[in-house]
């Protein structure tokens, strides 16, 4: 009979251990896993990415339910082990199960450390550890504005960056003078703080929290010095505690963690521990790379394979915050007997410090550019002697790339030796990746990840993996190796758009079929994107696919949380008439519209309209759609300009109305907002718009890629022009260039930061190029029609807004013959 292996904890370290064990010896054990969380094993590290909007919850599952089934693992989720009986060799759970074992592995991880502040139990005070916390933050951000993160370490900063992305105002409270002081020296810490401040995070340093304020829900935080800071959400990220209570109560030896020997064995026979809960040679680890090493050793031991014991690990750290590159490893502080190689470039925001002791690299800190990080990390681990050639570590071999310029990923990948570790989290060496490419035919990052796990955890090694792939299968294949636009494909946006163009693909179905999507009907991410790209490329032939449009664009109204919709008619340039106002008022009364609101874009929003009422509301309004719901031109905000204002130099209102009339109904990769101000006082706030026009004496300035939303960004000056015609011409060219080159869903601010302002300027610099762009946008604009009018006038389109109301009395419904009498389109609901 097989031996019974029971594991407590269904987390990253534990499941990785089980995977390795099954690979080595799949027949030896019947495996049972008990996990307190109600999910299959997921990538805890990526919770930060979920917050930051770079991944979705479903992307972070590491082992789905089928994996457990296929490997014959008995899985108890949402169940907690409450005691271990080493004498009877069984564990008991909170659901009353008694599960016998021959070998028992504790992989219970850690618990977040919650500061014992008065008021810490209030609603809105949370940790950042699991899916639940992450969901709480996402939910909270929808209803509240202000967040405080306590703790300026790695986790705290990732939480803060995520909350910022979720549109909250974020302050980080830290008791030390420097953030991430455990991983960074003061120079790197200062540079990091400046960068994060630029992104919008506030820092309250050298502050000690004293009490959480508020009634049932948190309203703020008081500090020891008596000052207070308002908050609707407090995230504590001050550290973790190994989860050892169960072990302690069961008589297993614990210190800070569960004490294990070099083979991960506890002092009790047949009981082992791996992961954050384990303490090895008085060291606890809180990063996955060493935990996976522990798992690998235990797997070998239990599989009956000869193995050297665990010797401990050197850890390295990277911060997963977009736009920030930070790396830290080993002993980075100067000490007696150490020498450091420093590069500091304040202009580029780059700082590197490599610490040597007796010619060997013992630690490093990097900020701004971390391209050599895997090489440095490998050097620390290998203990290679660099005496006399220390500089090679940053500047390459003698005579290689001269000067101080950093080497590219490709050079680096090529220079790596086969046994150099590329993916620190999963301990994957370069040769393992090359073997997967050559022998298992991997041609994409996704496939390499599936075969080797490289880049599967924190993802920071992705560029190097990509470079290795490109070097191995040839650069001409590079396009296909990039990460796909969604889980359905490995193709990038550019590859997809190019394929649509080259093969003249005309429907989303065709694209997904020809490009071999792995879900035949795609997903909610790619279908709307494909529909946009096809429409952008073939404005004349494309038949818009309603079933591939998001709810709002399909219904030409904004869905609200209760399933009703909002209606915003167009009010060109924010200028209305008494007649239109009366019309809006009477429609609001007739349909009992619960809320009438002036929007931030100078128009009127009718909120809470029932779906069935939409066509009639539009009919009675008899005004064009304001497209307040679409990835499209939204509003053109204007100030009064020289029409009335004593400072005005130009007619801002007319300019705004002209722009809105010309570009209304234009579909764009993401929403587009415009504004026109009559003088540099800029009352229309034109410099936080996707395109802002500001009048100056004798002309206009055009600003682009601003954003007043999630991440405030001041617009950049694109050009100055003299006439209104030129404003229209530049705007047309700019918008079309954006339409043709941006990723679906990408605002102009993100797009401009990705492709670079200079690229945009260069693309629009020549009159001929601008003309060509305008010609193309005019084709699209020439074919747009007002959607409200279209629906009102077309019965087929209208019927989609009606609900079928079936008879409610059983008699009426008893026979299906009587079904004929069912009415269509009752509105009584």
């Amino acid at each position: 009979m097989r031996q019974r292996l029971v594991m407590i904890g269904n987390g990253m370290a534990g499941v990785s251990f089980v995977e390795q064990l099954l690979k080595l010896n799949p027949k030896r054990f019947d495996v049972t896993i008990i996990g307190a969380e109600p999910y299959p094993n997921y990538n805890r590290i990526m919770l930060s990415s979920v917050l930051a909007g770079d991944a979705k919850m479903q992307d972070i599952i590491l082992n789905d339910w089928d994996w457990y089934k296929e490997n014959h693992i008995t899985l108890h989720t949402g169940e907690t082990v409450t005691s271990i009986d080493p004498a009877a060799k069984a564990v008991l759970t909170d659901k009353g199960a008694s599960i016998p074992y021959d070998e028992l592995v504790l992989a219970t991880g850690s618990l977040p450390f919650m500061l014992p502040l008065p008021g810490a139990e209030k609603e809105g005070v949370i940790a950042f550890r699991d899916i639940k916390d992450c969901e709480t933050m996402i939910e909270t951000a929808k209803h509240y504005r202000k967040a405080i993160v306590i703790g300026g370490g790695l986790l705290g900063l990732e939480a803060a960056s995520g909350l910022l992305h979720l549109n909250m105002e974020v302050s980080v409270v830290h008791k030390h003078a420097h953030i991430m002081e455990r991983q960074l020296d003061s120079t790197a810490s200062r540079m990091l703080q400046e960068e994060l401040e630029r992104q919008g995070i506030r820092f309250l340093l050298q502050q000690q929290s004293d009490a959480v304020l508020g009634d049932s829900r948190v309203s703020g935080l008081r500090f020891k010095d008596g000052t207070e800071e308002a908050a609707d959400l407090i995230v504590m990220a001050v550290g973790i505690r190994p989860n050892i209570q169960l072990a302690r109560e069961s008589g297993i030896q614990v210190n800070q963690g569960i004490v294990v020997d070099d083979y991960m064995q506890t002092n009790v026979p047949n009981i082992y521990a791996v992961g954050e809960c384990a303490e090895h040679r008085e060291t606890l680890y809180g990063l996955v790379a060493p935990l996976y090493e522990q798992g690998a050793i235990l797997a070998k031991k239990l599989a009956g394979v000869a193995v050297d014991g665990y010797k401990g690990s050197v850890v390295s750290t990277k911060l997963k915050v977009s736009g920030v590159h930070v790396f830290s490893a080993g002993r980075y502080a100067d000490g007696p007997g150490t020498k450091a190689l420093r590069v500091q470039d304040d202009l580029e925001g780059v700082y590197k410090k490599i610490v040597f002791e007796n010619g060997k690299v013992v630690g490093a800190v990097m900020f701004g550019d971390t391209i050599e990080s895997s090489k440095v990390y490998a050097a620390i681990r290998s203990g290679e002697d660099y005496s006399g050639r220390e500089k090679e570590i940053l500047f390459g071999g003698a005579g290689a790339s001269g000067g101080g310029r950093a080497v590219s990923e490709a050079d680096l990948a090529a220079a790596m030796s086969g046994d150099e570790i590329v993916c620190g989290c999963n301990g994957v060496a370069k040769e393992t990746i090359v073997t997967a490419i050559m022998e298992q035919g991997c041609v994409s990052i996704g496939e390499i990840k599936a075969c080797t796990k490289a880049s599967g955890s924190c993802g920071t090694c992705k560029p190097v993996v990509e470079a290795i792939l490109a070097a191995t299968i040839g650069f001409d294949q590079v396009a296909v190796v990039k990460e796909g636009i969604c889980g359905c494909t490995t193709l990038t946006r550019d590859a997809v758009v190019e394929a649509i163009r080259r093969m003249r693909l005309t429907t989303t179905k065709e694209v997904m079929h020809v490009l071999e999507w792995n879900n035949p009907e795609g997903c909610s991410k790619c279908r709307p994107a494909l529909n946009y790209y096809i429409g952008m490329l073939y404005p004349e032939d494309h038949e818009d696919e309603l079933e591939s449009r998001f709810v709002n664009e399909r219904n030409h109204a904004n869905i609200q949380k209760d399933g009703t919709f909002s209606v915003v008619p167009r009010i060109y340039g924010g200028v209305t008439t008494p007649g239109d106002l009366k019309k809006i008022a009477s429609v609001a009364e007739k349909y009992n519209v619960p809320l009438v609101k002036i929007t931030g874009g100078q128009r009127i929003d009718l909120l809470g309209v029932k779906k069935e009422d939409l066509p009639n509301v539009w009919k009675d309004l008899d005004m064009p759609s304001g497209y307040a719901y679409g990835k499209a031109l939204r509003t053109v905000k204007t100030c009064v300009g020289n029409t009335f204002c004593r400072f005005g130099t130009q007619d801002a209102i007319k300019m705004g109305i002209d722009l809105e009339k010309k570009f209304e109904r234009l579909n764009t990769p993401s929403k587009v907002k415009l504004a026109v101000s009559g003088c540099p006082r800029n009352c229309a706030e034109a410099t936080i718009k996707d395109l802002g026009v500001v009048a100056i004496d004798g002309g206009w300035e055009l600003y682009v890629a601003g954003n007043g939303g999630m991440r405030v960004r001041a617009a950049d000056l694109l050009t100055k022009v003299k006439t209104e015609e030129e404003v229209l011409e530049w705007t047309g060219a700019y918008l079309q260039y954006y339409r043709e080159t941006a990723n679906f869903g990408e605002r102009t601010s993100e797009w401009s930061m990705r492709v670079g302002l200079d690229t945009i300027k260069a693309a629009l610099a020549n009159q001929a190029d601008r003309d060509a762009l305008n010609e193309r946008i005019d084709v699209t604009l020439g074919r747009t029609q007002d959607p409200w009018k279209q629906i009102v006038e077309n019965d087929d389109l209208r019927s989609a807004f009606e609900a079928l109301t079936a008879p409610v009395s059983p008699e009426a419904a008893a026979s299906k013959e009587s079904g004929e009498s069912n009415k269509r389109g009752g509105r009584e609901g």
Partner: protein
Amino acid sequence: MNEIIIGHLSEFPERRSRVVRLGSLELAVFKQTGGTVTAIENRCPHKGGKLSEGIVCGSHVYCPLHDWKISLNDGLVQAPDDGCVQTFPVYIDESGNVVLRIELSESKVS
């Protein structure tokens, strides 16, 4: 078990849905690619999103509010989210009518 004709197959656009109300019960009836028609309660188990407004991909619908993925065939919410919505049997009769089978006494219809 009652049988109710809720429309003709031709009235249901593919990969779209129609809302059917039975008293206070609201159903979303979907026609999948290939013509299979299925009915589920029009209420996402997450925050009550109207599933009838979601994007349909194969035999799944994505909730319009927060993108949960839900099977149209068995009503199960797909990982990593969790939950289920009630499904109702539907068949197409010989003349192409879409017939819903439902126990009216047990439903919320009174």
